[in-house]
């Protein structure tokens, strides 16, 4: 039993109060501590990914209590991949927040950021479904703070909606867990898998109810139709670096769907057969359509990117809904891609919007470095829309290739292809309004001297440090495209391990038998 497994939770958990209490008045110190902590986290996550690459399911028993009685952390390829994704995204977002000064526009940014990382890593690592609830709450309560970071009228009100929505979701989560515990007597995911498989279909009504409730909860997190409506207002009004970090939060929902509905309520279990795939697939198709039309119809930049996030979640969940190893491989590749793509869009949008008057999609005098911004914006958009040569194209190709069953193929191919087309049109319109038409408008403002509060430095050049995090996210997308072969092989093994239900159960419940 390696103690490294708990480090991604403990490290941010120790660092956050330290930053919050000791370094609250010293932003430089907080920045250094937060960056060092995130770099260390990334290092640990790389180490854990290397450890999980051997194909074993590693178990960490908290307090050394054996599995169904105590809480276990489970490190397999999937959770290692997810925490690695979290840590690398976090580092890029953190560098951006520091370089653009977002972190000093309110209090406790770095403490909340670390708590957020703790919650996300915990949600990915835990093997207990009640513990998953607890980590959901940890990441949510940190996200409430980050969402309203630096305040402002619209942001506070959007934050309020976000909190109310998620509190209602948490209540539903608890109802689902209560029902599940009453009908199976366990909350450990592996034990649940073993017990649910033994329940005859005619006695499984309560389990089906709780499986359905859980699916709604995870759908709220994953922004799936019909509970996607909170996302545009939240992401569009959140500070841009926070919105970029939130790109991983929707993936927490997708991960939970993937984990719980393959292991515990998986395909082949009579009691819960057909719940997830019946409902998830049509909902994901509608989500793609909503996202695409939202991109086309948006009149401001940030909501447009938010809708493209919804569209990408739809594409991801169409692949998840197939619940087959091949489709899961595609889903995982697309998940990694869409996390970086959404983050890079939000970060670029931040650079652009902070140099314009607001984020409405209408021509205004060209900002400084119009060409540079246009170029990186273009790159991020073709990634998000799924055009070659970046990884979005390969991701969508993999998803399409995996969905070849007659019933799925028509709907999924139509939705993804037409959705991509509409998204491209929407992005092209936005790009031309922001960057092309603005070049024909003469520079109106003779006074580049800026707003009195010193925040909106309209004519300020973006330095290397401000552009570098965006470049890092784009580099991740390029890397994902170039090394698509090895990555897909690794993900193939990941999904094979995910669908190896007996292996997971025996690794968690009888770890001594294996070692």
């Amino acid at each position: 039993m390696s103690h490294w497994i708990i480090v991604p939770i403990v490290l941010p958990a120790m660092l956050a109060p330290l930053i919050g209490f000791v370094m609250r008045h010293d932003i430089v110190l907080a920045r250094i501590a937060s960056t060092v902590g995130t770099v260390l986290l990334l290092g640990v996550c790389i180490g854990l990914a290397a450890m999980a690459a051997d194909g074993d399911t590693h178990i960490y028993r908290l307090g050394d209590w054996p599995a169904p009685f105590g809480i276990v952390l489970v490190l397999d390829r999937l959770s290692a991949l997810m925490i690695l994704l979290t840590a690398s995204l976090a580092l890029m977002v953190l560098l951006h927040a520091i370089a653009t000064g977002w972190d000093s526009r309110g209090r406790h940014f770095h403490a909340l950021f670390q708590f957020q990382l703790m919650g996300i890593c915990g949600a990915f690592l835990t093997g207990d479904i009640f513990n998953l609830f607890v980590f959901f709450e940890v990441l949510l309560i940190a996200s409430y703070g980050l969402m309203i970071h630096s305040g402002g009228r619209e942001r506070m009100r959007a934050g309020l909606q976000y909190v109310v929505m998620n509190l209602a979701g948490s209540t539903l989560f608890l109802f689902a867990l209560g029902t599940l515990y009453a009908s199976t007597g366990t909350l450990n995911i592996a034990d649940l898998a073993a017990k649910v498989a033994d329940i005859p279909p005619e006695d499984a009504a309560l389990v089906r109810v709780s499986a359905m409730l859980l699916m709604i909860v995870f759908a709220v997190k994953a922004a799936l139709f019909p509970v996607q409506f909170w996302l545009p207002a939240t992401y569009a009004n959140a500070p841009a670096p926070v919105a970029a970090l939130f790109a991983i939060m929707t993936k927490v929902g997708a991960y939970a769907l993937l984990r719980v509905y393959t292991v515990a309520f998986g395909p082949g279990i009579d009691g819960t057969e057909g719940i997830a795939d019946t409902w998830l697939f049509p909902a994901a198709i509608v989500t793609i359509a909503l996202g695409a039309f939202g991109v086309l119809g948006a009149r401001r930049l940030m909501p447009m990117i938010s809708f493209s996030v919804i569209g990408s979640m739809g594409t991801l969940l169409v692949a998840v809904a197939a619940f087959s190893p091949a489709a899961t491989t595609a889903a995982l590749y697309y998940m990694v891609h869409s996390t970086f793509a959404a983050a890079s869009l939000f970060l670029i949008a931040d650079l652009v919007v902070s140099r314009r008057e607001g984020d409405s999609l209408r021509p205004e005098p060209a900002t400084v470095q119009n060409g540079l911004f246009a170029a990186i914006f273009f790159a991020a958009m073709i990634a998000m829309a799924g055009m070659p040569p970046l990884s979005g194209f390969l991701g969508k190709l993999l998803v399409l290739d995996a969905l070849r069953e007659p019933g799925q193929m028509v709907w999924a191919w139509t939705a993804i292809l037409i959705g991509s087309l509409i998204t491209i049109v929407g992005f092209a319109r936005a790009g031309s309004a922001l960057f092309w038409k603005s070049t024909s408008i003469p520079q109106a403002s003779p006074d580049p001297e800026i707003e009195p509060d010193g925040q909106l430095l309209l004519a300020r050049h973006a330095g290397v440090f401000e552009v570098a995090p965006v470049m890092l996210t784009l580099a991740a997308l390029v890397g994902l495209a170039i090394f698509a072969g090895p990555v897909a092989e690794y993900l193939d093994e990941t999904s094979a391990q995910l669908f190896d239900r007996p292996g997971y159960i025996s690794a968690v419940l009888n770890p001594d038998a294996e070692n």
Partner: protein
Amino acid sequence: MELLVASAIGAMTAGGVYLILRLRTFPVILGLALLSYAVNVFLFSSGRLAIDMSPILSKYGEASYTDPLPQALVLTAIVISFGMTAVLVMISLGAFLEADSDEIDIAQADQIEDSAQ
């Protein structure tokens, strides 16, 4: 007793759902509080209702015991929902002070031209 507990949970849930669909912050907070009470009682009863039984094994006899796990779960849930309600109250107070109105709805994002910045 099952009927009493079940109807209490049902009534609180119904009231809570009604209240969170209201337009103003204050009823929504009350509704979420009601919902969290309902879910706490529900969690408590998920280990079967039992009277006069302790949640620990007695080493002195054959006395039966009740399931301790739901009590631990409910304790966690109470702590979390209490904290969340406190956060919600603070955020809604902040939103009220910023916007001079306690309506939950925000104007359509697209209709706000640049005022957000």
